[in-house]
């Protein structure tokens, strides 16, 4: 099967079973490079399970999750890589990863997929700055000669740490948390914690940023700020974004592409406007296809 050139993440026949329960059933979709893709669906549709498969926290029961770095021609290696049993393969200017074969930390470290969590997972007892430095662990670890040079106090590590702090400072400025840099993360208000978690994920330099309900619990103003932040992340760095969201104002306003899940099955896939008018989607959200209620939903999402 040919994969389109601008595809960044190619999910194919993804199935996740927990005992007898099929949480995700034969799901296939693509995330395009430089786009914001939204994964929506009613509660319990299996959205977070898809995230957990992509980021390696679950090992899918079946399916293939390809991720490309660099040259689009890398997709030509997909079948060869699958047959080889390796985790990734490089050629000329491109590398192809099979995420289902990688442990979670390598997905972030090598395949450069970062994520946030539905129930925010910061390091509450560490400062905001420390949170962002932990996100740059692997680079700093190399710079500290895997601790050895660092213990001896060699200057190369000092320079790397300063660079890491500068990067953290830049992100803090961007999410408006610079003056809280030395406060413990657990003391921040809820909306700020959400922004910090995004900044922390961005400090790992991802090509794909996966956000699990980033607007949950935010007020309308904070929601609007979030939209701006995500759009600017994409604009400045070309980072692709995959997000799970219930807040339709976020989904409709910023996403380029929407995928709808219901009971682990994909029921719609396309641009936001088309998905919004899809009868199956409306039925899934309401449970019935009642004309009146459909109209209500349309009013709400529009």
């Amino acid at each position: 099967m040919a994969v389109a050139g601008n595809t960044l993440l190619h999910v194919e026949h993804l199935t996740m079973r927990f005992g007898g329960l099929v949480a995700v059933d034969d799901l296939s979709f693509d995330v395009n490079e430089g786009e914001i893709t939204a994964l929506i669906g009613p509660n319990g549709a299996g959205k977070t399970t898809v995230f957990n498969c992509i980021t390696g926290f679950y090992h899918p029961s079946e399916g293939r999750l390809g991720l490309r770095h660099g040259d689009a021609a890398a997709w030509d290696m997909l079948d060869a890589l699958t047959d080889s049993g390796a985790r990734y393969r490089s050629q000329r200017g491109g590398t192809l990863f099979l995420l289902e074969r990688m442990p979670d930390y390598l997905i972030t470290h090598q395949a450069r997929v970062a994520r946030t969590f539905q129930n925010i997972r910061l390091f509450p007892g560490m400062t905001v700055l420390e949170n962002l430095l932990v996100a740059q662990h692997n680079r700093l670890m190399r710079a500290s000669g895997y601790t050895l040079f660092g213990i001896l106090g060699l200057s190369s590590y000092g320079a790397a740490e300063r660079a890491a702090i500068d990067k953290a400072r830049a992100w803090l400025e961007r999410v408006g948390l610079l003056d809280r840099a030395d406060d413990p993360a657990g003391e921040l208000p809820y909306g700020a914690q959400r922004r910090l978690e995004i900044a922390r994920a961005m400090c790992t330099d991802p090509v794909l940023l996966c956000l699990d309900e980033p607007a949950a619990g935010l007020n309308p103003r904070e929601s609007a700020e979030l939209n701006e932040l995500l759009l600017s992340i994409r604009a400045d760095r070309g980072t692709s974004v995959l997000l799970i969201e219930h807040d339709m104002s976020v989904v409709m306003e910023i996403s380029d592409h929407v995928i709808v899940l219901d009971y682990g099955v994909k029921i719609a896939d396309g641009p936001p406007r088309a998905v919004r008018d899809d009868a199956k989607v409306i039925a899934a959200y309401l449970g019935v296809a009642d004309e009146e209620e459909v109209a209500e939903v349309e009013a709400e999402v529009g």
Partner: protein
Amino acid sequence: MSASGDRAGEQPRAPRGPAGPIPAARAIDRLASSVREAAITAALAFGLFLPLIGFETVTNMRNEVTLKTRWPLLFAITAAVAIGRLAYMLTLGPALGRRRLRAAPAPSAWRARAGGLFVPFAIALVVLYPALVIVLNGSSGALKWIDNFGIQILIYVMLGWGLNIVVGLAGLLDLGYVAFYAVGAYSYALLAKTFGLAFWILLPLAGILASFWGILLGFPVLRLRGDYLAIVTLAFGEIIRIVLVNWVDLTNGYAGIGGIPRPTFFGIPFNAGDDGFAAVFGLEFSPLHRTIFLYYIILALALLTAYVTVRLRRLPVGRAWEALREDEIACRSLGINTTNTKLTAFAMGAMFAGFAGSFFAARQGFISPESFTFIESATILSIVVLGGMGSQIGVAIAAVIMIGGTEIMRELDFLKDIFGQTFDPTQYRMLFFGLAMVVIMVVRPRGLISRREPSVFLRERKTISADLVKEGRG
């Protein structure tokens, strides 16, 4: 025991406004309820102590167990508990209750400044300690104070700091830490006796061997969490001890290994001979020389542990340990290899235990499995937790209180004048040790110093309150 019984069901009383009863009636009311409370406590204490204090099992000449009674003691203890409870209810209880309702006061500027001076002052004190003791007690009395107090406490400070890396920073609960201490001690003893290698060569070697064992034992258990990890590490600790007991060919079993070479002053032995330390330096021979030398070795080792830990906390690996304690899943989502990170914490902690172990063997000249029982692990862990997990100053203070406190019970000979010549205060050492563990935990569940100092800051270093710092699940 019952005296500190907290009536958990008791709600804070309604505010006493002008509508409340008149003061005299209130005082009588309070007295009555206190007396009732004290009577209940007395009845409980009586029941609690009736079998074990009321009766004493005595083995007679024919090796039969017979009973003796101790009614006066039982009644005295019951009365003491009742009076203590009554006094608590009438004086301290209400005051403590009120204090608990108020928020903790913010540390004052004076205290912050004193805190900054504390570390240099404490280091100066421990460096000058032997001289101080000699001045105060004369050279004959000083031996005990340097050896039993100074060296003994410093060993536990070092072990506490080593375990603090594993428990306090990485949040991994290790109840078998003594195993690595044993590995260090036996490595030194066996290698020094078999190959005649010097202390300074074997010290790092013992540390490396112990950290190797740390990785070996750590690897299979690191996916376990919390109490389970604690129990498996306990099991490993016990397995190593049982092997030491039973592998008689290597370890000489319960009899232990004696005649372990003592450290020399860079090749000059501490003996009364012509090439001994005293003769070379033109001093009169005294066993104190070696003790003072040992004191400075363990002081240097302990300070090394503290220094390395302080450095590590500011390096990515140290931050990753703390992040691991805060949230392991978030660490994985940030590309941190949590297995390796945990293993480095285990290995690092084990290495310092190995250093301490080889020092212990060199200081004692004799080791046996008796020195490496579970109680040792529990002691070290309790020092870490009582001190406040992660806080090096807290750990040091806890070691001084717990080890110094139990050692000082050996010195309380004047109690014999009160309780009679058969009274032996040393018997009560571990009893009070256990009691202190319970009491400190109940009073300060997060330990003596529970605030966290950030490892890096942009503008100002702000201490982080203990309520935010997680304790780790692993």
